[in-house]
């Protein structure tokens, strides 16, 4: 039995998720948007682990392991794309990266 309760854990996960969401919405640099998405993924994993510990089943931690793997794959491919974008457009401002093909 740990001293943390489920409700406080879920509240923390919610606040963290909302922080990441605000970061995704207010930043213009795509690197910061990726960082805020990592915060959101971490918050979702936090909620999973707390829920799993509440029911006494290891499924919550298993879900977190999968979230970790998905986040790692997404970050690697996303950063490779960001490097390509930077080499091509010379900017990381998302309001300038709004065309699919150059004219």
């Amino acid at each position, binding site marked *: 039995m740990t001293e943390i309760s489920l409700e406080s854990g879920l*509240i923390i996960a919610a606040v963290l998720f909302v922080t990441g969401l605000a970061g995704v919405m*207010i930043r213009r*640099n795509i690197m910061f948007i990726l960082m805020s998405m990592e915060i959101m993924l971490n918050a979702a994993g936090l909620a999973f682990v707390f829920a799993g510990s509440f029911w006494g089943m290891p499924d919550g931690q298993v879900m977190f392991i999968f979230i970790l793997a998905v986040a790692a794959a997404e970050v690697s491919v996303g950063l490779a794309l960001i490097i390509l974008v930077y080499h091509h457009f010379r900017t990381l401002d998302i309001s300038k990266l709004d065309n699919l093909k150059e004219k």
Partner: protein
Amino acid sequence: MNTLFIISTIVMLFSSVMVITRKNAVHALLYLGVSFLSAALIFYLAGAPFIAILEIIIYAGAIMTLFVFVVMMLNMGTPLRRKEKNWMRLSGWLGPVILTIILLTEILIIFIRPPFSFHQLLFISPQDVGFTLITKYILAVELTGMLLMAGIIGAYHLGKREKKAIHRYLEQINK
């Protein structure tokens, strides 16, 4: 132990807010690392020590390192500070922050609504986690392996430089 939980929660929330408000990318990454470390501490206090160590190794150790390397490669630290300062004006972030605060209030109301009671969390040992992974979630483990393989191949292919038709030296001579 409740004190430890409160302290690590404050550290995590504070560093997450600092991540989204910094102008220097390297500073934001350092705060992100602190956020992951405090999340690992919270995992340990919640009865999930295996996940705490995994978070440190993979999240703070591999994913953060990727970010740091790309930020260093694109030279995003000090030169971009002025641009970031121009991008973060009050008109830009006031609306989304108000909306997210509304969402946060709603979700807090849902969690604290009566009937409200504190439910305790149990300790899950790594043996249980490993056993469940191998027996119940074996399909998902295999699919995760395929996903990571696809990620490796995609990242390699995207990061490959295209081969030049003529050598750099010949290009320079012909200029």
